[in-house]
């Protein structure tokens, strides 16, 4: 990345952060969704009784919430660019399209991680009070969060760019995003399960699933990088 590209990257990222701090549209909508989902989970599991070890279903519950929560945020991430034709102003600038992708991706990743990190203690408070807690070190859960969020933001940024110009952009993003997320979702749930439940084989299981997460991230970021010029200009 040359000097101008780095300056452009920082400018778009800074602009997105400043606008999010002013409007709080993405973080608020994602955060509210996460909390409401947990309340629904609590009601859904209320008849299960004390015999249910919530840790067995916790990885799935968390990642389902995070995947749908991210849809809300990603939908908002390009709405600012559509307002008053700002996307046109971005495209008029002497900027390589992948720079736009990486700056929007970094902003989305940042906002997603903020909400995830704030949501997890709420989840623990609601579900894990009387349980054993996380068997392996917490950093393992943190690593899954980071790895999976990179994939979610990468694919989501690409798809949000495609869907922003369509008439039913909310449903369009969901229809494209959820099927593409399936391999990442499966790997993230597997890695989180290994981190939470522990046991003798958990380290090997954890790293095996993390390899899937990393592979997904690399492949999807390369695909997004290659397609972005075409997608944003379409």
């Amino acid at each position: 990345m040359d000097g101008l590209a780095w300056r452009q990257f920082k400018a778009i990222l800074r602009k997105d952060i400043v606008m999010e701090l002013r409007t709080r549209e993405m973080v608020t909508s994602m955060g509210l969704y996460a909390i409401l989902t947990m309340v629904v989970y609590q009601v859904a599991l209320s008849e299960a009784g004390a015999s249910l070890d919530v840790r067995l279903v916790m990885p799935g519950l968390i990642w389902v919430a995070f995947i749908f929560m991210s849809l809300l945020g990603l939908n908002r991430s390009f709405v600012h660019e559509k307002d008053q034709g700002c996307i046109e102003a971005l495209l008029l600038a002497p900027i390589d399209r992948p720079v736009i992708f990486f700056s929007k991706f970094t902003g989305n990743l940042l906002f997603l991680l903020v909400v995830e990190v704030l949501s997890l203690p709420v989840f623990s408070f609601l579900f894990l009070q009387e349980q054993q807690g996380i068997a392996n070190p917490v950093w393992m859960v943190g690593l899954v969060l980071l790895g999976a969020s990179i994939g979610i933001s990468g694919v989501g940024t690409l798809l949000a760019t495609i869907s922003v110009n369509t008439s039913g952009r909310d449903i369009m993003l969901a229809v494209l995003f959820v099927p593409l997320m399936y391999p990442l979702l499966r790997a993230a749930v597997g890695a989180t399960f290994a981190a939470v439940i522990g046991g003798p084989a958990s380290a090997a299981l954890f790293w095996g699933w993390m390899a899937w997460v990393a592979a997904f991230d690399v492949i999807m970021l390369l695909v997004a990088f290659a397609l972005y010029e075409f997608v944003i200009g379409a």
Partner: protein
Amino acid sequence: MEGAGRDTALEVRDLSRAFGVRKALDGVSLEVPSGAFLSIFGPNGAGKTTLVKVLTTLLNPTSGAASVCGLDVVAEAVALRHRIGLISHNPLLYPDLTAEENLLFFADLYGVQDAEERARELLEAVELDHRRLDLTRTFSRGMLQRLSIARALLHRPDVLFLDEPYSGLDPHAMDILDHLIAQIRGEHTFVMISHDLDKGLQLCSHALILASGRVVLYEERDALDEAAFKETYRATVGMGVA
């Protein structure tokens, strides 16, 4: 693109752009010298905005070629974007940034060296320095358009494209825009889309009428018979869209 002289700001050769089966531009050719003021007229759907979008690298042509400042609009798009500015009827500004933040943001995108000084200078020129710290969502249409002019001039472009810049402006804002154009007229080549025949003819050195994606008339202002030109324009308005 071969054939463009050093003093040619725009050269368009047999340019076409189709959307599906509909041709928005159909074999457009023209040459505009540096420093000229080209006014483009035509009915809705004539291809005016499509032509400007191709010349500003926002759309690729389906066939033919075009160059601005000697740079091909497809092959040398990134280099060309340093040399052009666009003032649209949309302000192309972020409503949740202040006037100054908007200008500094675009200064970063264009790599403007003296960004803060340049932003201050332009805010004064468009008489918005007293509102520089206000969010642009609080601005009136005229103020947004003035700030949009500052945005387009930030990087000192050689060619300035204006897509119906007077649309929705109050008389005071129109006066300011007139004054700004008069101030910078010698330093830039202008390409303006206008539905206001009198305003367009008053400003231009070259006039172009497009209809159904084709050039109906292209002449220098000095050689123009105004009555005949207006008659041709009125006739094209009834020609329908491409």
